[in-house]
């Protein structure tokens, strides 16, 4: 177990290094540099600026300086937001994105497991048909349409009550978080519902369910102890990649609901070629995702003792 964790963590570190390298060279591939956004400056000033930011050095040299700083946990100073350290940007805005993402994952998994189990129990009956209709809707409608519709719904709710019950945009209280995270989790919820339904249908026919029924266990006990626990395993395996999809997919929802998350800074930084911010956000996101996937895998070992982690 410990050996497995260590092995995974080492692989994770290499992955993060790979992400950093790929980002660095992709970024420097873009024509132009962060200084071109400034007002026209004389060559002397430009040379000074390049010297200040270390842009006068060769690419490889810059790369190793960056790696060195990264190892010390320092991503440098933003080019476009003066005197703002990239670490500060991440510290201020990542928690927002992470809260949004994790809340969305929470909605998606609880909803997906619940609806999926329900559809399997009422297979080919009315609840199944209704839920699966919404699942198909959730899979085929893009998240930004849901975001727009969700916001529209909030506007209508507020205008119905004649006062601002639930804030339409912004961030801060739990009320701000509710609609964006639900909208963000919708696609994943639909996906997990489908998955849960098929794995639940498989479990229902297993022998141990028949045995449990023959023993005279109550249907609730069979449902919670025997069906749900076994059917939930495939859902957990896809959770890792889904966390990745949701946390990076948060941009659009952040954009529509005016949430001060990290996604916006990344898009802005790419447009302005703010080297340090691009590197900082990408590497940080990458590391976060790698860590999440490892955690889900280890968690899987705990939940399903049959799986030997090796």
């Amino acid at each position, binding site marked *: 177990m410990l050996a497995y964790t260590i092995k995974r963590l080492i692989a994770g570190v290499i992955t993060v290094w790979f992400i950093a390298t790929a980002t660095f060279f992709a*970024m420097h591939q873009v024509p132009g540099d962060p200084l071109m956004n400034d007002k026209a400056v004389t060559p002397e000033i430009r040379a000074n600026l390049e010297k200040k930011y270390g842009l006068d050095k060769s690419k490889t040299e810059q790369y190793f300086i960056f790696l060195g700083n990264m190892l010390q946990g320092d991503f440098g100073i933003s080019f476009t937001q003066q005197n703002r350290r990239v670490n500060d940007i991440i510290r201020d805005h990542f928690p927002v994105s992470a809260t949004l993402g994790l809340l969305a994952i929470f909605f998606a998994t609880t909803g997906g497991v619940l609806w999926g189990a329900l559809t399997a129990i009422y297979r080919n009956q009315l609840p199944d048909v209704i839920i699966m209709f919404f699942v198909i809707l959730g899979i085929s409608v893009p998240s*930004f349409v849901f975001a727009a519709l969700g916001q*529209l719904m909030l506007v209508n709710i507020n205008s119905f009550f004649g006062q601002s019950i639930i804030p339409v945009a912004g961030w801060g209280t739990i009320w701000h978080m509710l609609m964006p995270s639900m909208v963000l989790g919708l696609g994943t919820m639909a996906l997990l519902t489908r998955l849960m339904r098929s794995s639940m249908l498989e479990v229902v026919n297993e022998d141990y369910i028949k045995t449990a029924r023959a023993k005279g266990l109550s249907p609730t006990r069979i449902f919670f102890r025997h069906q749900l626990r076994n059917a939930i395993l495939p859902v957990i395996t896809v959770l890792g990649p889904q966390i990745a999809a949701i946390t990076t997919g948060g941009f659009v929802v952040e954009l529509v609901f005016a949430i001060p998350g990290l996604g916006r800074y990344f898009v802005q930084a790419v447009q302005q070629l703010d080297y340090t911010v691009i590197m900082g956000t990408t590497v940080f996101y990458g590391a976060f*995702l790698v860590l999440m*996937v490892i955690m889900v895998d280890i968690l899987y070992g705990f939940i399903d003792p049959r799986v030997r982690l090796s």
Partner: protein
Amino acid sequence: MSTYQPVAGDFEPLTTQQQVEVISRPSLSYWQDAWLRLQQNTRAIISLGIIVMLAIFTLIGPLAWTADPALQDLNQVSQAPSWPKTALLVAPYKSWAGITLANYESPDSYPTTVPAVTGFKVLDNPTTQRVRLIWDPVPGADGYNVYRNNREPLDFNDLGLPLGSTYGDQISYEDRLSLEAREYYYSVVPTDGLDEYEIYTQAIVTPTLALTPDEALERGLISDIDLPGQGQEIVIEFHPFGTDYLGRDMLARLMQGARVSLFIGIVAPFLYVLAGIAYGGIAGYFGGRLDAILMRFSDFVVALPFLLFMILFKIAFGIGPGESGILPMLIALVLLGWPATARLVRGQVLQIREEGYIEAARLLGARDHYLILRHIIPNTMGVILVTLTFSVPSAIFTEAFLSFIGMGVAPPTPSWGSMCNEGVKTMLSHPHELIFPALFISITVLAFNLLGDGLTEALDSKMRSRE
């Protein structure tokens, strides 16, 4: 009780049966069988039909509907979908003095209340050129405020800001403020020249769309300025799906957008699935250390934060001025998309490699390339086809997503995603600008998903034996 009495014939030897076993049904190849089973799946067949219809819409549509998707018609901005509309040819606008009272004197003092305005009505035929309103004078009032609402006002406070005011003897108002051919609620409120009496009278007016011969000629609706006389109706530009915020024809833009979205959505998965087959095939077939190295590399690519790198790569491969940005998006999708297929194909190949028929072929002297082309690739085709079908929706989503946040296809090239992006801004007032592109994305994604489900079932050989 009767017993059976044997006869001599019972003890003669049986003749050899001519056909011991008859293959009563025609032998089907794997693909014929899969196709037959797919045909039984109604949802998959409907989806296939939708996909064919989308292809027709994209490829043949622009030939049938020749409106220019880039033409901006500022006379018809954000028009809702409609049947062909007609406009009335009217004389050029002439100024109107309005109606004033003869011998009018302002009252010396103003009463605290006055009765509501009576006789509030439209003079002449209301057109989008002008709406002329008249009303009877109210004794004691020394002016009037005129309001225009798009919906029926609930009460006096709901009137909003006045459209205009008249003073003293003026008992008419002419509205020329960007009129549209729709229902308006006009209200008039008497004032003492300054403050309003809280009482209003309402009239519902629906102006007809009007054009002067000059305007019609300029828009190419008529060929001769004198030919259709004034008061005649002419047919104006037809926009079945309405227009967007720049007056561009939505149907034409949806068709052009379909070309972009479907091109990216189909070509990108096709390319990266091909790359994945090659990569995964090599890794799986040769195995060993090469396999380990190749798969470790694909693990790294999988770990890249997908959307961040889509944006980064798209920028890195650069778009010059005037380019649409389709190619960089395609490259980025291919660079990031291949590992999933590679992994899948590798798994399949590893499995097939150990099959008996491969051993047999090898014993008969088959070479590597023969084994790969003749046995291994055809046997992975089913899985690959399913992956390809499921990759299309995700590629379409990615394109739409990037275009939505403004990092996708560069304007003025439309794609369904960028059309959604523009439509969201006017969602409340002109919902059709968002609904149509969103609907097209959803239907396409749905059709490919359901077709993928159908293919999975049809190509699954386990299902075959279960029947």
